[in-house]
């Protein structure tokens, strides 16, 4: 096996294992920590595909900011077994059903796509320069629309926070 393959399998096992850890662990804090480890594994995959910028931004934004806030909230809530809401059978069933349907849709969408393997030989494909060029020429409209979406979400958060 080449080192590339070894790393791929290591990261895949890590991502799947930690992903299972997120939903299987009883303690919400360890769920969050498993999720952070999953993000690291996914960042490793990005690096294997020469997308260093995406990898580090994934860590900064998700592991470094969003998960800190998650941890923050969970620490303050102090979840125990007796404060945990009682789960209804019906709700559990609905959850499994909707999750299964989502899985089915993803599977159906991925089945018909042509395999578009990343080019591992060129090392500059994931550089910030190329990403910026693509974002501001080819995908400028989706990019700007999503930034407007973020702005409105930010303003919305401030409005909700201001209400006493």
């Amino acid at each position, binding site marked *: 096996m080449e*080192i590339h393959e070894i790393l791929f399998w290591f990261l895949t096992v890590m991502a799947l294992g930690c992903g299972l850890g997120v939903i299987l662990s009883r303690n919400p804090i360890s769920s969050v920590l498993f999720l*952070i480890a999953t993000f690291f594994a996914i960042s490793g995959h990005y690096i294997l595909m020469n997308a260093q910028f995406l990898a580090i931004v994934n860590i900064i934004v998700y*592991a*470094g*900011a969003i998960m*800190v806030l998650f*941890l923050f909230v969970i620490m*303050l809530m102090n979840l125990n077994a007796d404060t945990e809401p009682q789960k209804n059978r019906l709700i559990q069933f609905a959850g499994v059903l909707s999750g299964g349907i989502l899985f089915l849709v993803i599977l159906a969408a991925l089945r018909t796509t042509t395999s578009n393997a990343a080019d591992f030989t060129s090392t500059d494909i994931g550089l910030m320069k190329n990403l910026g060029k693509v974002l501001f020429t080819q995908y400028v409209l989706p990019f700007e629309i999503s930034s407007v979406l973020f702005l409105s979400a930010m303003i919305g958060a401030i409005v909700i926070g201001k209400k006493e």
Partner: protein
Amino acid sequence: MMLLQLDVAFIIEKLILITVILMGSLGIAMYATWGERKVAAVMQDRRGPSRAGPFGLLQPLADGLKLFMKEEIIPDSSTRGLFILGPCLAMLTALLTSAVIPWGPDYVTEAGRIISLQVADINIGILFIFGVLSIGVYGIMLGGWASNNKFSLLSSIRAAAQAISYELAMGLSLIAVIMMTGTLSLREIVDQQHGFWSDGYFTWNFFKQPVGFMVFLICTFAELNRAPFDLAEAESELNMGFHQEYSSMKLGFYLFAEYINLFVSSVILSTLFFGGYNFPFMDQVQGAVPQFVFVAVCVLVLLTKAICFILFFMFVRWTLPRFRYDQLMKLGWKSLIPIALINMVVTGLVILWTMKK
């Protein structure tokens, strides 16, 4: 095995470099604790540590030995795994950042082999530093929460909120620098600040981005949890803060990680804004002395700049009183972020204007 195709000489070279950098950071951090006490003593008209060795120079060793010998107590009510993970993470993230710092110019051996004094020249060097920085807060948060002590929890929550708030302003102030240099690689940023004076202006980023530097500096104080922003360990409000339940070397790791962070941040400040290992008249010096002397001088220049910053951090700590928490948040969100944003826009306009000409 295909694994063995790796260049053995390259690995050995990097291993030696990593060892030297780690030992160097630990050594400097050790003496930073001594320096801090001496600076405090001088500013408060005392003598400071003076018993262990000449000028108390062996004091850090004595402190380390004391911490190692102390009894290790893990509270019953703590979450054991996370309690141990906290100091490990703090130490790990403190040491990780030094991997992307260029410590000196390349050394070319007579056989033509280029030895780089940088562990990893990755093209996202600055973002790597931010990534490590954003992970760094987990050490404090987990340690504080796992202690199962309300003061520790309060302190860790303060630390996290402070770190996230000031990371924003820090990133925004750096965007202006990145716009000017056009690269995220620390090596290239240092190379662009070559010498001291060229084309009728200073080459160091400090003279091109004074506002960005000020914002970055203030944010560094907050990220380091140092006075005047050391609210995470405000003794008068939180006893000792997040490391209250820690004892022995786990406490030592937290305290030590803080001083390593101080050193690494000082190096980063010198690298980004004060030319890194560049110094005035370096071209003349390079022509006059053998190569290894030149490289050594460059490394010493970088260390000197870093030590000046460390001293500056210490002077500020013993000069300014602690901020109140709401003042801290107000400064971060309502002053620094707008200033950094305006600085960014002005920098963009200037770049556009000079490009048109």
